[in-house]
């Protein structure tokens, strides 16, 4: 796999993108084909992605936007 490490901050990534990159990193690390320096870099990136994913899950407050219409306030959850 090429040097296409997405440099964007994990916190600003979508959950899906962060998870996808994380899986890619795990796969590349497991392949054992990387240079040690590259392994370490990826590991660090993986850890920050993992942290970001967990944080997103833990802190997630469902965001609901109305595009059209108004929701009837029948259940006050």
């Amino acid at each position: 796999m090429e040097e296409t490490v997405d440099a964007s901050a994990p916190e600003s990534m979508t959950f899906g993108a962060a998870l996808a990159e994380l899986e890619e990193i795990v796969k590349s690390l497991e392949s054992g084909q990387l240079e040690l320096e590259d392994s370490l870099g990826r590991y660090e990136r993986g850890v920050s992605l993992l942290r970001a994913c967990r944080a997103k899950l833990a802190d997630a407050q469902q965001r609901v936007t109305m595009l059209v219409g108004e929701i009837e306030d029948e259940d006050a959850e």
Partner: protein
Amino acid sequence: MAIENTSVSVTEALRRAKSVLETISLTIVGEVSECTVKPGYKAVYFSLSDDSSVLPCLMWRDSYDLCGFALRPGMLVEVSGVFTAYAAKGRMQFQVRRLTAAGEGVLRLQVAALARKLEAEGLMRAERKRELPAFPSKIALVTSPRGKAVHDVIRTLRRRYPVAELLIAGVQVEGEGAVSALTEGIRLAGSHPGVELLILARGGGSYEDLMPFNAEQVARAVAACPVPVVTGIGHEPDDSIADMVADCRASTPTAAAEAAAPATMEIVSRLDAMARLLGKALSHSVIERAHRLRLIAHRPVFRDATCLMSARMLALDSAAEALSRALPVGIGRAAEAVGRSRDVLLRVGPKLTERPRIALGDASRRIAQQGPAFMERATGQWTLQAARLEDLSPLAILARGFAVCYDGAGERVLRSAGDVTAGDRVRVRLAEGELGCVVERADTEV
């Protein structure tokens, strides 16, 4: 009810049953199963059924002809009439006075026709179905802003996957205007920036209530939606057309939300697994390299650096030793021998060559002086004599056509006719060969 003890005839029994049955007057909705509409018959016979029961019906021909439509199996119809009994067969049946197509029956016919049309266009093909994104960041929901469906979806997504942002298009989903509202809602929400998935939901309702989801426009909006569509429409056993065209069909709004998003629990365990794998992969990679390093560090070179040099040093040493051993003896002896030889050579050499050198010098001087003249002379003589020899050769003369005549013994050359008389033998030598001849005449004067 007490059972009468007095026995009656079969006919009487059926008469009584019939009189009771004929008090039950109803309007019934059912699906036409078998039906027999034949020109010569006085009545039209058919059966109405639902999921668990079948009711034989008859309708007098006159009334049937008046109702103005043709019965066909599969139709949903509404019939009004009374129960009755047909004594000859001992059978109960419903005598239809009024027959109308139930709205739903006609609708189903239309829907089935549309389904066939869209299917023929390939809108329902399995290869058109797109895979749902595993972790959508933004999910659009097109449904009624009122009712249970919208809340079911919101609740389910909040529970399972609060990470996703939810964009709701609250539209009218039944009655007049629902079709265009749904179509517009799907179009707007599906193309909204960032939306990765669209849920089309509707709570349960009657077939008629769900009709907008069977509309061609809605089906085409679903098919044209740029992101995958999951439907969760009603609790109907039958798929709506929207269901058939959608990428994924769930039976209820809640099921649609479940299909649309992964459960947080699953994700958390997946993250845990990934964290383990990440650590393991790195440590494995480090351990593997450390092991390799250790192996290298244990090689002799790194254990004792002098071994790098030792071989060369030994070689040098032995060379030096050999040198120091060889120099005084070998070279000294050779030099001595060479020195001796040189002396001899220097002494003897000139003497050896002096005499021959002088002789050679004389000879070469003489050759140089006399050579050319001698050669010239020799060459001139040789040429001259060769020419004369050629001229003098009798062979050359013979070759020109002359002949030499010898006496019979071949000893004498005959120069005059007088040397022979007629009858003598002579020999004539030609350029090639010899003739033996007998003289016929000998004339001295010619």
